[in-house]
């Protein structure tokens, strides 16, 4: 699949933003006034920035408002509805914290649950596609949610022991989720029943090979769904993004235990770079079954 910067940015930053909102809703850290404002500002910048990036991906954004209508059947629609509801609920909680020095724990908890649900529905947009065997597995939502919580915990700051420990453990869980996703994804590719033979129905006759493509130039299908460059560098990008997203942040947190601001900052920067690398690969490495028709 074509790794469009808009979708990479969308999944990476909305995940981080909603992850942070999930922690803030639980009072981790439980700040009021200006400090709370700073944290909410970051969370909203990431979450809303990510959502706006996804709007940039649309070819006809003037109809974007209509995407709230099909929540009964469409995960993309559900994601939009949930994102907006979550932003409103958490905003009410945030206003209490910032301006009135009050915490509404029940509302905060609802906001946290909604934040995680939003990330889950983002992941389902990809998970539901049987046409991309690598994505079509339960490891996709697990990975998206785990990344979001790990990133959220990092962004929440390492001011308390609880947050410090949580960030550490969540990073490890996300690392496991990532490894699992790669493994299961590789298996899905190997065990996928679909090939040029089933795609054309000619597999019963013999071995099928394309000898002439249907068009001499490129087209939307090739640009969007038959992206082959990523598959070549997959192994290298995996290693780099894994080290950046998990290994360095864990080491930084442990090494700077006495100076959690420095350790936290280092961890956040590398983690974000790692998330972007991993998401690039998530798209670039995925093979859509339509590639079969083109023998790619």
């Amino acid at each position, binding site marked *: *699949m074509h790794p469009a910067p808009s979708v990479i940015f969308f999944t990476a930053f909305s995940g981080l933003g909603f992850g942070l909102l999930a922690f803030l809703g639980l009072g981790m850290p439980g700040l009021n006034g200006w400090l709370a404002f700073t944290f909410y500002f970051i969370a909203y910048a990431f979450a809303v920035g990510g959502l706006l990036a996804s709007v940039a*991906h*649309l*070819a*006809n*954004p*003037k*109809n*974007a408002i*209509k*995407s*709230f*209508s*099909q929540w*009964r*059947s*469409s*995960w*993309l*629609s559900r994601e*939009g509805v949930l994102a907006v509801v979550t932003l409103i609920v958490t905003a009410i909680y945030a206003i209490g914290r910032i301006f009135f020095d009050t915490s509404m724990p029940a509302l905060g908890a609802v906001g946290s649950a909604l934040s995680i649900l939003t990330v889950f529905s983002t992941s389902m*947009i990809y998970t*539901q*596609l*049987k*046409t*991309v065997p690598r994505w079509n597995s339960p490891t996709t939502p697990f990975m998206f949610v785990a990344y979001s919580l790990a990133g959220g915990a990092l962004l929440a700051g390492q001011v308390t022991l609880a947050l410090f420990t949580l960030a550490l453990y969540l990073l490890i869980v996300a690392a496991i989720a990532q490894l699992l996703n790669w493994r299961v994804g590789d298996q899905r590719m190997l065990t996928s*029943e*679909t090939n*040029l033979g*089933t*795609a*054309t*129905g*000619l597999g*019963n*006759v*013999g*071995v*099928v*090979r*394309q*000898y*002439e*493509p*249907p*068009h*001499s*130039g*490129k*087209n*939307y*299908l090739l640009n*969007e*769904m038959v992206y082959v460059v990523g598959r070549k560098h997959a192994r290298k990008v995996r290693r780099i993004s894994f080290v950046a997203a998990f290994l360095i942040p864990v080491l930084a947190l442990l090494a700077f235990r006495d100076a959690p601001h420095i350790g936290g900052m280092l961890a956040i920067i590398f983690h974000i770079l790692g998330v972007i690398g991993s998401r690039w690969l998530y798209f670039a490495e995925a093979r*859509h*079954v*339509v590639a079969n*028709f*083109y023998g790619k």
Partner: protein
Amino acid sequence: MTTLPSQTDTKLGLVIDLDTCVGCHACVVSCKGWNTQNYGAPLSDKDAYGTPEGTFLNRVHSYEVQPDQGPAQTVHFPKSCLHCEDAPCVTVCPTGASYKRTEDGIVLVNEDDCMGCGLCAWACPYGARELDLMAGVMKKCTLCVDRIYNENLPEEDRVPACVRTCPSGARHFGDLGDPNSDVSKLVAERGGMDLMPELGTKPVNKYLPPRPKDTLDCGVALNPVAEEAKGFLGWLDNALEKM
């Protein structure tokens, strides 16, 4: 609504004969012509006089099939929307632009609602949807819904443009939900098949496999008239052999 109808009154669709298609691309051209001048946004071309790139609703691939024994065959393979009964492209659509008609099962895009997210094209296993980059909306085969019911056209023209155009009679149009229709009989007789049945889309369109090739009794076309060279050629053969 992007939920699918549980059942449709008819199942209009195409039957494509892979045995007779000669790969002339006439259906590709007539499809583009009709659908550029009629329903919805025209099918745009980019850089038409350079390296052309554009939107088409129908494309013809060409394959070589090598059986276990005997020579390889060429098969021309036209591909357009299969108007699936369980169409994944419809249910993923967030805006309600994509829908499947209850009356005849045709899958359409309402361009006034489409936001151009492209998710439906990702959900389609067959590459049957292309986002028009000029109009910013999703384009797909309409089964020429603006021809088949059009009483302003002479009756013989009330079929999809590709079917009307095909010079080799490789494309057939009809109700695949009615077991007594000509197309259903053709499918039964020739062993019509689904593409990628493993993905569970239940396509309405069917493909007729190429007929099995006949085989010759003898291994070679002609029996050799002389096994050994005689006369001058025999002498030359011997002489060259010895050198």
